């Protein structure tokens, strides 16, 4: 816990930098708002076509789900990596445990590739 106290200082400095950048931007820049300046940018047209917030392709969503699952998996590698070195004297128990765990993960990856779920091909 004590080790994180200096991060508090860093937090304060970062906030100060952000506030500084914001005020500088506010104070120095001129302001002459015009209707066309404030409108949506879109190539070569004066008024934008339809709403910008149209539904997205599902593959982005798939990537996010997959990332979540693999991130959870990877999070379990970390505690394993930490104690693996010390556990070596007690035989290959941890190696086998992780190989089984990783085997199932690899099955998942193979499934993704075989079904071409991310439209990678």
């Amino acid at each position, binding site marked *: *816990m004590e*080790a*994180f106290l200096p991060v508090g200082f860093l937090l304060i400095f970062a906030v100060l930098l952000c506030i500084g950048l914001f005020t500088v931007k506010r104070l120095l820049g001129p302001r002459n708002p015009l209707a066309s300046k404030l409108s949506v940018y879109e190539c070569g047209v004066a008024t934008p076509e339809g709403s910008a*917030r*149209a*539904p*997205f*392709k*599902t593959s*982005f*969503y*798939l990537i*996010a*789900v*997959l*990332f*979540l*699952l693999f*991130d*959870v*998996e990877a*999070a*379990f590698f970390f*505690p*394993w990596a*930490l*104690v693996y070195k*010390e*556990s070596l004297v007690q035989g290959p*128990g*941890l190696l086998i*445990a992780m190989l*089984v*765990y990783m085997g*199932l*993960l690899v*099955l*998942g990856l193979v*499934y*993704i590739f075989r*079904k071409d*779920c991310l439209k990678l091909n």
Partner: protein
Amino acid sequence: MREILFVAFSLFTIGAASGVFLARNPVYSAFSLILSFFGLSGLYLLWGSTFMAMIQILIYTGAIVVLFVFVVMLLNLQVNRENPSNLLTLGISAGAVWFFSLILLRVLTRAIPNKIPEIPTDQLRTISKLLFTRYLWPFEVLSLFLLVMIIAIFAITRTQEIPHGGEQR
């Protein structure tokens, strides 16, 4: 010092969590959720559990909320301008309030320790060792569980692909 920080983090977490359902716009709700997870990881730090604090940020803030935000943007949920006049919504809210007040009552009536319990210093290695000795089987089953989830997600999205215009977005 610890007590002050504890109260500060708790209030921050609760405040941000209230923002999740008070915000009209789902994207702002997601933003509040991030802040509340931050408060939570601050609490973990206070208990000396640096590993849990980091995992909290890495998994919850860095992955789960990303998924939420993606879904909100994907479905393009509109801003909810109506008040919850729906009977069902009211019923569910009343039920939730009742349930959580029960929990709150249970928590409040228990003897409140006047000091936050101290936690052993080298928790990281202790947790990791326990995970791979006593909790080895749940750990392996978890992997199977994740595999099932991967397959399930693709099965669901395959059948319910949202049709839309030819342009790839």
